[in-house]
């Protein structure tokens, strides 16, 4: 015997020589898996798709490599409009058994037509949108979306269920019932559909009747019934489940209409409608947009004006500050001038009050500096003495000191000022020779 798991030989104790698995246990599990696959197959063949899905999922729990179960599960999902779920199962199946696997053929079939795959993707997207609308409370949009979906994908069970729920919420139990009937035609034992019907108060007998009718129409009937089913479906989507089962088609007497005599009327009505459309739809929107633009411009201008006002007030503040600074500087200058005046006056007062002895001592010190050949000191002392008091001695020693310092120009000017200020000075005789030079 070979191990069901790895293919290695099984030992006498019933365990695999390679993986150590108990052969009996594995065989039992594989048998159970096959049992559930058969159950699923039976259910699928009578269009009990929900029941088949349950059974096949169980089969995969016992043996996830049960290729038939996985392929059938994919096929059922595909039938119910869940193409991507179906593809998922087929891809996994082909991964477990790459050769001689029906899943490969299914995948190729779907992938061979990119449009089909795109349509399946669109279906999923649109349903998700519809579901989101239903959850958000925008049920009208959900209705529109679902009707669009169901007109393209008549086997999409989830869509019918959501539509039925929306009809129920909308207070249309009859339409909901018809949508649920559609579900039962595709999936005979759909638990949600049965639950909704029983919640709506539909008698169990009637529910069983619906199931049986679905069995009769979809499985056993010939193509003519299928065509009837499709045409029913189109009407159902277009007319919103109104007059499908009880068609009330009353036909009046036939009369040919002469369209030509209404041509002018049509043109006039068209013009009026055009004007009305322009007046009611186009003009208000244009006015609204123009008003909005104006408001925005107004807002922008008012913002600019307010900004400029702020800058003006800032600048005014700056001007005031600058004026204050100028005033303060002027006051400071005045104070400085006053203080200079005060200091000059104080200097004069000090100058007057300095005793003459200081002048005289300065002059005598200048004389001693000259005799010691320190002419620069003598010049400084004489200048200080002249600041304190003008006198002939100071001019005389200043001139001599300049002469000693070989600065004849300054010496001459000092002697000239001595001569001018003190014409009767004793030193004039001495300095005459310098002046004449």
């Amino acid at each position, binding site marked *: 015997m070979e191990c069901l798991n790895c293919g290695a030989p099984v030992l006498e104790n019933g365990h695999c020589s390679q993986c150590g698995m108990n052969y009996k*246990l594995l065989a039992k599990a594989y048998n159970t898996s096959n049992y559930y696959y058969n159950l699923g197959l039976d259910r699928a063949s009578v269009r009990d798709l929900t029941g088949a899905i349950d059974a096949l999922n169980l089969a995969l*729990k016992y043996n996830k490599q049960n290729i038939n179960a996985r392929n059938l599960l994919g096929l059922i999902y595909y039938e119910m409009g869940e193409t991507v779920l179906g593809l998922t199962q087929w891809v996994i199946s082909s991964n477990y058994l790459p050769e001689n696997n029906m899943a490969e053929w299914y995948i190729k079939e779907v992938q061979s037509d990119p449009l089909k795959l795109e349509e399946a993707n669109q279906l999923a997207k649109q349903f998700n949108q519809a579901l989101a609308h239903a959850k958000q409370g925008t049920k009208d949009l959900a209705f529109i979306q679902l009707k669009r979906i169901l007109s393209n994908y008549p086997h999409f069970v989830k869509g019918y269920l959501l539509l039925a729920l929306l009809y129920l919420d909308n207070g249309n139990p009859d339409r909901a019932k018809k949508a649920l009937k559609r579900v039962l035609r595709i999936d005979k034992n759909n638990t949600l559909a049965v639950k*909704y019907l029983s919640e709506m108060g539909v008698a169990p007998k009637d529910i069983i009747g619906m199931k049986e009718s679905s069995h009769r129409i979809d499985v056993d009937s010939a193509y003519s019934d299928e065509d009837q089913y499709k045409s029913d479906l189109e009407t159902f989507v277009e007319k919103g489940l109104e007059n499908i089962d009880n068609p009330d088609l009353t036909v009046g007497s036939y009369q040919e209409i002469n369209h030509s005599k209404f041509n002018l009327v049509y043109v006039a009505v068209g013009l009026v409608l055009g004007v009305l459309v322009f007046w009611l739809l186009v003009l208000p929107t244009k006015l609204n947009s123009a008003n909005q633009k104006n408001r925005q411009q107004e807002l922008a201008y008012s913002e600019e004006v307010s900004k400029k006002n702020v800058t003006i007030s800032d600048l005014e503040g700056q001007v005031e500050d600058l004026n204050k600074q100028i005033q303060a500087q002027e006051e400071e200058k005045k104070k400085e001038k006053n203080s200079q005046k005060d200091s000059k006056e104080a200097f004069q007062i000090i100058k007057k009050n300095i005793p003459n002895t200081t002048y005289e001592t300065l002059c005598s010190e200048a004389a001693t500096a000259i005799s010691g050949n320190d002419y620069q000191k003598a010049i400084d002392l004489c200048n200080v003495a002249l600041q304190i008091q003008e006198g002939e001695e100071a001019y005389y020693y200043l001139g001599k000191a300049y002469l000693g310092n070989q600065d004849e120009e300054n010496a001459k000017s000092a002697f000239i000022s001595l001569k001018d200020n003190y014409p009767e000075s004793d030193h004039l005789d001495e300095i005459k020779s310098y002046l004449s030079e």
Partner: protein
Amino acid sequence: MINFDEEVRKFKPCLEVSQAEDAIYKNDVKDITDVLEEMLQQVNSKKTK
């Protein structure tokens, strides 16, 4: 009575093509063989300890 909000909440979004790859990788359902393998590993690890 059917509560719309509760029932709508039970609806799950459909898988889109772009999500198929994730769905395939996440489809790691354990079967009996996996459970038995795990049990054997546990028994073997206990024996080695």
